[in-house]
């Protein structure tokens, strides 16, 4: 069963649902298939708000355990004419450890299916929304043909980005941060080299000296020097040597933060490389390298589709080169593959992204087995990114396996470099907790989120205040809300909100993630917001 249903994003799904709530005047029934529990919650919250404004009622049914499903059906059938019942079963099974959600969905469908007319009578001017994970769609028509046949709609909704988490999944692995040739270059010596070259007649030598000085100086002085070098490069006839310095210039522009110039320079480099490849085989690795660098710059400029084209070509070349000379090209092959995976994710081609990230992980595992000191960190990063992407395609269990392996590797790395890996560990744990929330394993999410927060706090002591902890607090608050620990949830969310407010303006992202959760917590606790938060919450509501 391969053909997928068309996918809605959250806003399109809401548009469909909102109009249904607004217009329908007799019984209706809708299905939502989504892997992300937050989508269901968001749609439910919005529906609740819209109905409340019309003086109507929404009842949400979200069982904490599969066994609770039978009682839930009885409660659901106690609804009244104009009510809307929201049955949330976006809960993923965990194989042998917590089986039963799939069965619970089947059971509830069967029971409601044979009570279709009872539902129609009970909710005569209202409706019922049945929400579960996407993998259960295929069996749903067969399990509940009577409900399915009268559905007003069935929506397949995409997951949300991991808003609560702070994993930097877009970290790219560059072949080198700075052109190796310039690493540690001495400014004074570089200047002397430039002076000597100016005194001579060799343009290539002057270009090389200028590039060295630009790399050593960086900053404003570096820009001037690099501009001079670029101008000279234009006057030189094409050759593999020229190709190398062109590539250096492009990477220096990038390192200096001038992305338009970097793009221009690297495009020129790759064009030159293409011309040379036909006549000189040594230009082929340089073509791949220039495409890799160009792809990275384009991605930084937000031109993801174009970046993907460049990275894919670079990958194809490096894959082939790695087959012939693995010792030289394997790491480049892995980096191209990983970065392509990251960019594919940025443009929503998540399934392709997953495939490519799996490939890069395989290569990094080979590299790490040979040089664990150098590549174990790459494996961990790759696992973390792959885990997030797997969640987006609904493969939560596989995601958790990857994320847990990432966690274990980071723990191991932290023994050697406790300080450097602390932040990554905190981020990884926040993501794991978020995925656990998504699959409804709230107790585990609480423990994991607490561990993440602890690490963030240690990092805060070491390197100053960080707002990233807000994401982990949001995850913790969500899990606590689900387990009914409302007071603890409020406390976590208040801490997150205060921290987000202190760190403004660029942390509004966290604030707006935390705010609806906090409102829900207040409603669940039957309490007003804390005094210091109430004014801003009221203002934002207005």
């Amino acid at each position, binding site marked *: 069963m391969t053909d*997928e249903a068309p996918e809605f994003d959250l806003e399109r799904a809401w548009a469909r649902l909102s*109009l249904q709530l607004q217009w329908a005047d*007799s019984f209706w029934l809708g299905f939502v298939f989504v892997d992300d529990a937050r989508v269901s919650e968001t749609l439910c919250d919005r529906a609740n708000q819209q109905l409340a404004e019309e003086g109507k009622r929404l009842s949400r049914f979200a069982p904490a355990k599969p066994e609770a499903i039978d009682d839930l059906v009885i409660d659901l059938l106690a609804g009244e004419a104009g009510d809307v019942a929201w049955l949330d079963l976006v809960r993923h099974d965990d194989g042998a450890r917590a089986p039963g959600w799939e069965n619970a969905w089947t059971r509830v469908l*069967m029971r409601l299916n044979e009570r279709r007319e009872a539902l129609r009578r009970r909710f005569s001017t209202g409706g019922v929304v049945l929400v579960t994970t996407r993998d259960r769609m295929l069996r749903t*028509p067969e399990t509940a043909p009577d409900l399915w046949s009268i559905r007003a709609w069935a929506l397949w909704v995409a997951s949300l980005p991991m808003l609560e988490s702070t994993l930097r999944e877009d970290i790219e692995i560059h072949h080198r941060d700075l052109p190796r040739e310039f690493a540690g270059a001495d400014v004074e010596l570089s200047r002397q080299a430039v002076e000597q070259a100016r005194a001579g007649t060799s343009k290539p030598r002057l270009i090389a000296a200028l590039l060295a000085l630009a790399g050593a100086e960086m900053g404003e002085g570096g820009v001037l020097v690099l501009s001079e070098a670029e101008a000279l490069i234009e006057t030189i006839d094409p050759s593999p040597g020229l190709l190398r310095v062109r590539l250096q210039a492009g990477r220096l522009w990038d390192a200096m933060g001038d992305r338009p110039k970097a793009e221009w320079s690297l495009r020129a480099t790759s064009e030159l490389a293409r011309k040379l490849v036909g006549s000189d085989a040594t230009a082929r690795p340089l073509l791949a390298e220039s495409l890799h660098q160009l792809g990275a710059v384009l991605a930084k400029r937000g031109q993801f589709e174009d970046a993907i084209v460049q990275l894919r070509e670079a990958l194809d070349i490096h894959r082939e080169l790695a087959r012939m000379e693995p010792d030289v090209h394997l790491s480049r092959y892995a980096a191209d593959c990983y970065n392509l995976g990251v960019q594919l994710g940025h443009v929503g081609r998540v399934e392709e992204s997953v495939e490519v990230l799996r490939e890069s992980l395989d290569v990094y595992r080979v590299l790490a087995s040979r040089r664990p000191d150098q590549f174990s960190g790459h494996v961990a990063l790759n696992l973390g990114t792959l885990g997030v992407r797997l969640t987006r395609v609904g493969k939560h269990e596989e995601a958790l396996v990857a994320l847990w392996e990432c966690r274990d590797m980071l723990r191991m790395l932290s023994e050697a470099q406790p300080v450097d890996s602390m932040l990554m560990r905190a981020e990884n744990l926040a993501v794991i907790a978020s995925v656990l929330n998504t699959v409804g394993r709230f107790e585990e999410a609480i423990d994991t989120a607490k561990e993440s927060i602890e690490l963030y706090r240690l990092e805060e002591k070491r390197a100053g205040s960080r707002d990233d902890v807000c994401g982990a607090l949001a995850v913790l608050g969500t899990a606590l809300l689900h387990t009914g620990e409302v007071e603890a949830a409020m406390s976590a969310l208040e801490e997150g909100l205060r921290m987000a407010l202190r760190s403004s303006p660029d942390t509004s992202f966290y604030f707006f993630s935390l705010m609806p959760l906090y409102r829900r917590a207040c409603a669940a606790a039957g309490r007003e917001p804390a005094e210091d938060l109430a004014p801003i919450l009221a203002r934002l509501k207005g």
Partner: protein
Amino acid sequence: MVDPATFKQLKAFFRALQDRPLEPGDPHYVEIFEDHALSSIDPVARMARTIQFATLEPDSPESRSASEFELETVQLFSGHRGTGKSTQLRRLKQQLERSGPYKVVLCDMEDYLPMTDALDVVDFLLAAAGALSEALSVPELLGSDLVHGYWARFTSWLQSQRIEISDLGLKTGEASLGIKLNLKEDVEFRKRIRERMKLHVGAFRTEVHAFVSECLKRLKQRHGQDTQLVILYDSIEHLRGTTSNANEVTASVEALFRGHADALRFPFVHTVFTVPPWLRLQHAGVGERFDGYCQIPCVKVRERARQQGDIVDFQPGLDVLWRVACKRGDPTWLLGGRPEFDELARASGGYLRDLFRMLSILINDAGEYGVPVSAERQKLAVEELRGGYVAFTNRDAVWLRAIECKGALEVEEIEDHHRLARFLDTHILLAYRNGEDWYGVHPLIRADVLRRASEWDAAHERAGT
């Protein structure tokens, strides 16, 4: 956003398309079977005639061609979900009540029986009697004449058979209340009933028949001696198993209608049972034990393809769907014209609920983009609907292709019965009538079926199997 007048009109159209069974007098109602080009048989007229013939004077020449020796009739009525069975049963009720001394009750068996568990004749008769007593308890029929209804009578009957109420897990004082609830909800209760009554099945059948006769007598006392009782048992076709008990449930439904046809024939009463569309297919003899079998097909929007790719419109079908849509709103205004509507009608395969779903999606879109909705939006609506029909494997596709080509359901393996029931239940297969009944794959997935079947063929060719 659109202007308020357009918004209002869209809202009215949207509401008119909402799913609900129609009464024959409803302003949205269109009599599909009055068009003989569309169907040579009006199922309601046929069922009504069977009942009327059986109640005419024996020397009537007309009656001799029907159930000459029968004082009661039992008919089976089938059709896909959403083809309007419930509406047609309401029409039958109305037609009979207008034409003579018929008191017609409609019993929704879904309220009394579990729909995903194997059925036993005892459960079924108990539910049928209970449902009848509740249906008759309305003031215009018997009101409180039945005193305690069947549930109370049943407890007395159990005692007369020396079956302890407590053996069924019921408390004496609450027995009559608990039976209905437990019959539907409690699998253990049903097991206990079957176990305790296995030696009393014949007696229980007699008891239920006696009860139904008692009901008829009281009706005659109250409404005149000519009164005829017609019981329409609806929703029985919803019986189906799950993946774990599908064959068991299927077998139990077959056993009921094949093995207990006599028990279902209530003396002097006319009954209609709705049955799953696959029932008749599985045992051709099923229809012969009853006085009639009618099936409601989908509205035929195309002629049966004689060869692959040979799709020809059936204009009367498209016309009737147009009339149905026009009763609900203005499809020209929404879509731009009749050709656009016909595209949707073809995509629906003549299945009204799918047509309405597509129109609702487009009304929703029109709320944002205005009318008429663009061709692109119309394509997206079709695509959205198609998403609900992807639940079949490449192997299934080969099987579906064969049905699409032959137009007939040929089930070779017993295991395929469940598959057939599943595809009929979920409208992957649609039934049509063309003088004879024929079947086709839903047009939304016809191309997918052919493609995936070819992929299966190719894979097996490569594997040399």
